[in-house]
């Protein structure tokens, strides 16, 4: 059986590292409390941008990782010697990027003789909601989000709904069969020439637009019960619509905002319909919570819709306490590692390897 979610202060400090995709991140957690969470975002950094160039991402990770790890130790007031364990994301993700974090974690674990914990990136997104702010009063830190729970990951690379019997036990209820929600938003932004990754830019323009200006086909209409998210058809329809409008004239600011709002509306509507259907089909029973993690959950409109849906089916949504916990970050890895630490699930440094195609319900 999994352990209860509790948080008190006699836990060991865990150093966590995540380099699964474009972000280089390191964190120190103590139980469920986040002491530091350093995220070096390549998409933010490069000129402010210049690009999420994945293969450069490997070099960037290599260049930044010591700085990021040192910074996370320093700002949490930790030393390598005072750590209880070292943890690292082993998958899923971009293989060449994952390797950088794994090598670094392995070296530290060997050098300082610390137990090593391998973490599933998807699981850590779901458990990110359990992270606690270190500035909270201790009396407020004990929360009651006990599984069973439903869990959602909405990010650039994943769109996933699971039933979590207990921490470490996941059953997939719905997942994407083509594009992920975040990817779909990024690509639609790209079709509007708003750059890439553009999901965040799309959100800004969508706020100024009217969501019913253009009609787009709702994916899987009438088949929401199959437990499948699908965004490729919507993307195609949107590409056609934008192309047709562009043939007539250069898109105006109003058109861009309206298109952004219409796309976002349809994409979210589909997400909510499938999620709601899958949850009710599985049965709410004594499940009280929906844990929501992943970069797209930072979108205010999506969170609003999730809250509304949860109200209708009488469960409570739980989101991470800080924006920095939505996108890829290492603190969530530390939270997941904390549970593995309690269960004594460690890996040998010489055995740890990247698992780019890791699934949520797969044993590491």
């Amino acid at each position, binding site marked *: 059986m999994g352990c209860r979610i509790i948080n008190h202060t006699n836990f060991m400090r865990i150093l966590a590292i995540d380099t699964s995709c474009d972000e280089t991140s390191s964190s120190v957690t103590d139980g469920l409390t986040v002491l530091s969470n350093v995220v070096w975002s390549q998409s933010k950094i*490069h000129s402010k941008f210049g690009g999420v160039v994945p293969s450069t991402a490997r070099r960037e990770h290599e260049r930044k990782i010591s700085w990021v790890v040192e910074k996370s130790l320093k700002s949490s007031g930790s030393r390598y010697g005072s750590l209880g364990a070292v943890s690292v994301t082993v998958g899923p993700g971009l293989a060449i990027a994952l390797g950088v974090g794994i090598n670094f974690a392995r070296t530290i674990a060997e050098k300082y003789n610390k137990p090593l914990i391998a973490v599933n990136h998807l699981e850590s997104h779901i458990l990110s909601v359990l992270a606690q702010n270190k500035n909270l009063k201790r009396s407020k830190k004990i929360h009651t989000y006990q599984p069973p729970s439903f869990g959602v990951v909405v990010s650039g690379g994943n769109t996933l709904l699971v039933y979590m019997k207990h921490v470490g036990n996941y059953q997939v209820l719905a*997942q994407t069969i083509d594009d992920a929600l975040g990817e779909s938003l990024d690509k639609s932004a790209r079709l509007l020439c708003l750059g890439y990754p553009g999901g965040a830019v799309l959100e800004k323009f969508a706020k100024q637009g009217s969501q019913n200006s253009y009609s787009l086909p709702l994916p899987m209409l009438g088949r929401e019960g199959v437990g499948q998210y699908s965004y490729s058809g919507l993307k195609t329809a949107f*590409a056609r619509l934008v192309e047709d409008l562009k043939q007539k004239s250069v898109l105006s600011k109003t058109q861009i905002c309206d298109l952004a709002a219409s796309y976002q509306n349809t994409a979210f509507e589909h997400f909510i319909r499938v999620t709601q259907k899958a949850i009710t089909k599985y049965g709410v029973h004594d499940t009280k919570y929906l844990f929501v993690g992943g970069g797209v959950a930072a979108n205010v409109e999506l969170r609003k819709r999730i809250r509304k849906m949860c109200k209708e089916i009488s469960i409570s949504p739980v989101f991470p306490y800080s924006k920095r916990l939505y996108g890829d970050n290492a603190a969530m890895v530390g939270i997941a590692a904390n549970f593995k630490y309690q269960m004594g699930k460690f890996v040998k440094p010489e055995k740890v390897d990247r698992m780019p195609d890791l699934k949520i319900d797969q044993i590491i």
Partner: protein
Amino acid sequence: MRTVKEKNIKIQDVVNILKSGGLVVYPTETVYGIGVSAVDNKAIEKLTKYKKRPIGKPYSIAVSDISMAKKYVTLNPAAENIYKTFLPGPVTVVSNGKHKLAKGVESETGTLGIRIPSYKLVTDIVNRFGSPITATSANASYKKRPYKIADILTNITEKQKSLIDLIIDAGTLPKNEPSTVIDTTYDEIAILRQGSVYIQNKNEILSRSPEETKNCAKELWQKYEKYTGKRAIVFALMGEMGSGKTIFTKGLAIAMGVDDLITSPTYNIVNNYQMKNSTNKFIHIDVWRINNTGEISDLNISQNINDRSVLAIEWADKIADTIRGFNEEAIVVWVKINNRKKVNERSIEWGVE
């Protein structure tokens, strides 16, 4: 450090300070910005000291109009559109720079973010100054967004204060968000496009639905199936966004007996699958996010070729030369999916180059 109310400001005074390498805090339609001459190396160094920024983080700049922008960046059609649609206004447009600015303004990859503020005082200053000034926010890195002068001053040290030469105080600004950054450099696929691909002896088929696209892939697979495990097979897929490259790949995977769900590899770049009842691997790659030819080698495609795996590569025209390099060892099949007038119709062409 001198503070002057906006209504009392003389543009020429500001210009003189900028000319002598000074730091000026100024109001905009978003937050307070801090400006130095973007062509003055010393001034940029001073600014970096003030901001306490990690090295390598670039600065966006403010220009007075599009013609000034064109002196410093190359505007592609996407960028031109955005200038026309959104500027002046709270939008920063990233383009490829012409390397005419002080060191550290452009990003390490040579891109540059430009904005034309819709705040007359700023464009007046830049206009009179005659060249761009930095348009970074006036707070030190990772500190509070500055909507009033006190937001800045209460969060910096005396030493930082001493670096500021002039503050133009316009009171409390409306709480508008910082500018939205739009990166237009992604529209320059041409940088990577390694020559056009001409398919010889090409076969063509009409698909009327995603289902037919999958079936077409299955038929194509049957033609090449006999080489499985003997030679690597590369399906080099081309077609616009939304044309159905991933759908086509799903068809291939079903035909070759891959049971796993095939999803878009855009984020992971590479997805690995195992063929049923065999040791052969199926590798699904998407090079859409790759912008740097030199580093395609990181994807380890040649290892997959050595292993005699089957590969499906989306946006293959972006790395056409790399793929041509495998012509000897592998069977390379080019597949082009073209949109047609009807929404669901595609013409699918395939053959060798």
